[in-house]
């Protein structure tokens, strides 16, 4: 394991500086789309109108970047979860928008197993979440296979967090690596309650949704109302496969979830998820990966359905991709496909690859498995393609620069 931090020569050679105009002027880049792909990362600098985007990249060409996240608390710390086909996983950190990168000196890694026992190995870090505003420099990471880690120094060193990685009950719920997604089981959707740094959620594919009220000392499953694949017992936490969970910034008591088996809403303090995806058109269904919520309206959310029939093609439905949005908490859904390909578009969007900005009207963004980056400046009413021909997109995050 690394003993001290180092510069990444890959970034030295490939990272181009952000446009000089990024610090002022009406046309100054104001939005940053952080695009993580199977073969590297790109930063798209968008102007205030969100109509012009300038590509900066590739960063880490050839490396698998699972997530690229800007710390909204300081507006400058950027973390990238990286691995390659050959090498073990690591985390890179930049505080100058990717001009230079520093590698974590202690990336997320499970504890070494006692002699004679089989230990687990982090295959990749999948999810990154900045902690509460009262805990500057603290981050959480979710890994594949499922593990929860915490950094208290802005991503340079990481340690297992809260004991669940080696808890026998949680290990049983996590299942084996054969129980997870094709690319390995994931811990994801690590959510921090903006009102309480000790109130956290996470989700596991597979292994359900969980929360702690005491900063990770105790966790409990939060799966009531969630359905599982037919023939399995919904009481068994291990059988639950939440794909993406989001908390409404305007109402932290409301969460939405895109699950392997439907779209759900949860209004705390209730523990009962309600399957609001039942209101989706029957021929579309409510299977998908991403879930996006409105920054100011807890009744508004968006999904991007995929084909989950028969052998689970995981493509758009009938080759006609569309976003669906609700403005009434999931009671009804509206198809939003203006500008998207009308047919023969067989891509889909992964769970981390769809995001919203906080402008009015809200901008929506998604990246496809075929390497296209799409955006809407009007809450999904119409769509335009920002970039094509990128590698398979794993994650899209939107940051607004001030």
């Amino acid at each position, binding site marked *: *394991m*690394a*003993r*001290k*931090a*180092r510069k*990444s*020569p*890959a970034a030295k050679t490939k990272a181009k500086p952000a446009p000089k105009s990024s610090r002022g002027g009406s046309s100054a880049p104001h939005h940053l789309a952080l695009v993580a792909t199977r073969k590297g990362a790109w930063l798209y600098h968008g102007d205030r109108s969100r109509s012009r985007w300038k590509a900066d990249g590739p960063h880490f060409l050839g490396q698998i970047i699972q997530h690229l996240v800007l710390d909204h608390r300081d507006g400058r710390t950027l973390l990238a979860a990286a691995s*390659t*086909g*050959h*090498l*073990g996983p*690591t985390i890179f950190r930049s505080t100058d928008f990717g001009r230079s990168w520093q*590698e974590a*000196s202690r*990336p997320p*890694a*499970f*504890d*070494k*197993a006692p002699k004679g026992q*089989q*230990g*687990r*190995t*982090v295959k990749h870090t999948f999810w990154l979440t900045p902690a509460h505003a009262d805990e500057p420099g603290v981050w959480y990471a979710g890994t594949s296979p499922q593990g929860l880690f915490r950094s208290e120094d802005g991503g340079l060193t990481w340690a297992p967090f809260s004991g669940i990685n080696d808890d026998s009950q949680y290990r049983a719920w996590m299942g084996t690596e054969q129980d997870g997604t094709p690319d390995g089981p994931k811990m994801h959707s690590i959510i921090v309650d903006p009102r309480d740094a000790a109130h956290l959620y996470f989700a596991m594919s597979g292994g359900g949704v969980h929360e702690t009220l005491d900063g990770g000392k105790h966790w409990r499953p939060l799966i009531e109302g969630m359905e599982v694949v037919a023939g399995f017992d919904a009481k068994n936490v291990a059988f639950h496969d939440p794909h993406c969970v989001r908390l409404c910034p305007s109402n932290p008591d409301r969460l939405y979830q895109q699950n392997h088996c439907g779209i759900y809403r949860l209004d705390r303090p209730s523990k009962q998820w309600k399957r609001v995806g039942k209101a989706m058109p029957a021929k579309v269904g409510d299977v998908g990966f991403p879930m996006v919520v409105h920054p100011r309206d807890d009744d508004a959310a968006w999904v991007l359905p995929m084909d989950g029939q028969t052998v689970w093609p995981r493509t758009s439905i009938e080759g006609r991709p569309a976003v669906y949005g609700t403005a009434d908490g999931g009671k009804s859904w509206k198809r939003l496909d203006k500008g998207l390909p009308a047919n023969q578009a067989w891509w889909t969007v992964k769970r981390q690859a769809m995001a919203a900005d906080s402008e009015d009207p809200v901008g929506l963004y998604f990246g496809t498995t075929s390497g296209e980056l799409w955006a809407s400046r009007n809450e999904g009413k119409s769509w335009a393609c920002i970039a094509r021909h990128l590698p398979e997109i794993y994650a899209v995050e939107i940051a607004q620069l001030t």
Partner: protein
Amino acid sequence: MAGNGTIKVLVASPLHSYTGADEVEARGKTLGALLADLDSRFPGIRFRMIDEQDQVRRHIRFFINGEPVRELGHGIQPGDEVCIVQALSGG
């Protein structure tokens, strides 16, 4: 043969971002000790090859004098040549 008891190590291209070269010299009486020596000079390089359970990662191979080696305790003699290879194909 490298001088002063050091061992010549041929480094696969995915690790050149650490070493800055395709050939470096290192010290160590075992493969594990040699990797620890490399990590002291190129921080982080060991974890990219060896996981937290001290197992060689799936797509990394070590050869000593042309023979495949998977045990970190495998002995190395002065004059041996160590080769770190990436083993991966497909898109």
